[in-house]
């Protein structure tokens, strides 16, 4: 097999960080990630000793629990060539915030830096590291892509998902207005400040509706659940899916929040 893209490894061993939301709510995204990674030439392992990246604690100011969770993640994943997560938010936590958390820690700093260098968000990993091209799925319909905040601003993910989506046969990508504006999810923010969160997501669903698309896509399940839940409460019929589900062609089951 030919070495691919950025990596000199013929078959890099990827540890899949499933993310808690995908694990709990939408395994289909996890399986889509596995399929895409395998198609791109990776060997995929899913360590059982994973729960969450620690963001709920981290963003609530609880550094002690965050550290404990981070140590657990690093221990479970540092042996892989790459660590890949189907979420910009969780990947940014592992890649950008773990090093901040352990900065100046004699025991953990270097270990964390080495770990962080291996971490990638799924779509950007496929595109930038594996130079993945072989999208052989079809999708008949018009979609729009929402840039989730962490992926966009902490990891620079914007061009990669669009590039891969444009290779899906039959798919028409139509940009909504301000795709880079927050959907109002913000983790615990959406329940702590539900009134404000609602005002923000209302603006988002209005721009989604104005784009006149069949489906809304994004790379983060938290944002997707927020937007899907709002669209459905408003009685809108736009379907909502994770970008990996479309790229992997795993579209048989119901879309997010859709009835069986």
């Amino acid at each position, binding site marked *: 097999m030919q070495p691919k893209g950025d990596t000199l490894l013929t078959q890099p061993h990827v540890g899949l960080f499933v993310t808690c939301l995908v694990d709990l709510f939408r395994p289909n995204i996890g399986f889509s990630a596995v399929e895409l990674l395998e198609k791109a030439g990776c060997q995929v392992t*899913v360590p*059982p000793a994973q729960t969450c990246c620690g963001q709920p604690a981290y963003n*609530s100011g609880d550094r002690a*629990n965050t550290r404990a969770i981070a140590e657990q993640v690093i221990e479970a994943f540092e042996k892989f060539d790459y660590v890949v997560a189907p979420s910009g938010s969780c990947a940014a936590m592992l890649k950008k915030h773990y090093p901040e958390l352990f900065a100046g820690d004699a025991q953990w700093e270097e270990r964390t830096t080495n770990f962080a260098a291996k971490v990638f968000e799924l779509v950007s990993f496929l595109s930038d590291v594996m130079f993945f091209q072989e999208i052989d799925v079809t999708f008949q319909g018009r979609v729009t892509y929402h840039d989730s905040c962490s992926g966009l601003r902490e990891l620079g993910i914007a061009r990669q998902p669009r590039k891969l989506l444009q290779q899906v046969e039959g798919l028409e990508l139509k940009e909504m207005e301000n795709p880079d504006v927050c959907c109002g999810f913000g983790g615990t923010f959406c329940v702590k400040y539900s*009134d404000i969160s609602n005002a923000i997501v209302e603006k988002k669903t209005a721009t989604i509706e104005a784009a006149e698309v069949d489906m809304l896509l994004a790379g983060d399940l938290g944002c997707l659940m927020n937007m899907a839940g709002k669209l459905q409460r408003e009685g809108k019929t736009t379907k909502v899916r994770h970008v990996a589900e479309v790229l992997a062609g795993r579209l048989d089951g119901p879309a997010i929040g859709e009835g069986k």
Partner: protein
Amino acid sequence: MKITTPEFKSNAVEALKNQTLQKALSHVEEGFIDKRQMAADALPEFETLRDNARDIKNHTLSHLDLYLEAYEEKVIESGGHVHWAQTAEDARNIVLDICRKVGAKTVTKGKSMISEEIGINDFLEGEGIEPIETDLGEYIIQLRNEAPSHIIAPAVHVLKEQVEEDFRATHTHLPEDRNLEEPETLLDEARTVLRQKFLDADVGITGANFLIAETGTSIIVTNEGNGDLTQTLPKVHIVLASLEKITPTLEDVSQILRVLARSATGQDMSVYTTFSTGPRRESDVDGPEEYHVVLLDNGRTNMVGTEFQDMLRCIRCGACMNHCPVYHAVGGHAYGWVYPGPMGAVLTPSLTGVDKGGQLPNASTFCGRCEAVCPMRIPLPKMMRHWREREFERNLNPTAQRFGLKFWAWFAKRPRLYGLGAKIAMRGLAIMAGSKGRLSFMPLGRGWTKYRDMPAPEGKTFQQMWAEKQVGKT
């Protein structure tokens, strides 16, 4: 000024219900974002300038004492006075003393956030001295007896029609049938009314965008020219500035000026950039007889050397709030004190205490748009998180939230038990949702389901399905 920051949540709910405010807020989104982007795109070195601006301020903050002393020396050399004010009260008393000495009856004011921070208007009024705001936005909110809702556009929450009403109610000496429908006619009227006040004032108070250590100069940037009239016509000019406004040299300032207006309003430069060094000299054709600088600390030196030091780089351009989804939703008054938006969410707890200001750093989605546009590259979300940490350390966040977090973390640290619990919980949720695929009500989840449905889980967890698949493989 009464601090209503602890009531941020209810302030926000009121703001969301206020249709007039919501209409006015839509102008923030329309007015600032594209203009900033165009200005930034048009300048190839914009990103480099941001780096330089950050480095200049970082350097200054690490030698704050030296530059402040050098600045004081230069101000004195040029015939001016420097007054060190540790607290807001100190600053108010210093201003009052200066006003009393010249028997001031009226004081004109250029736009100054420090004057809001120390509440100088109410104070002077209580002492029988009339303060007159001369910036159009500030003038409007003074008539309305309101606080600014934005640091560079203080009346951004007010609609044109409301200004017309206010002017008609206040300027009763003008003909009733005058036309006030256009912004220009409103501006003309304010200008006419203010002209005589400029001439009559005994003291002029301005803020400062920068203080220059090299020359002892204070700088204001304005678009209306009111600042110039405020500081040159009266006998006495008082500059109200917080001490982190200090910048080493003119060269340094000229770099930061290049990112300031571009970030704020999308202008290359503000219309007026006014440099003031000391009082009028014999050869000068105009200028004040006395030049005073009140240097306010009010908690800022406590931030030096802490994880909040970066906040002192802020040059008050307002880009963070212009790009903030929370600010767009609720406007500036909901924040409950002087500084709104992301910069206010960091500064308010720094200056008033986290027990009062703690709501603000929590009310963020951490979308990071503020940091992405901050010309000084201030890591605003990171500092909001630091405030959450301080709050958590001091057990200041709500008990239910702490309990929930503890409960969750206990499981998150125990993958096997977590997996088991997740399996049961997700199965339960899936059963509750039935074939509908979503829940419109969820136990303990009203914060979510009040406004949106909850997408139901597939049923089994990924880990569960993955484990089953692995068994099948072998």
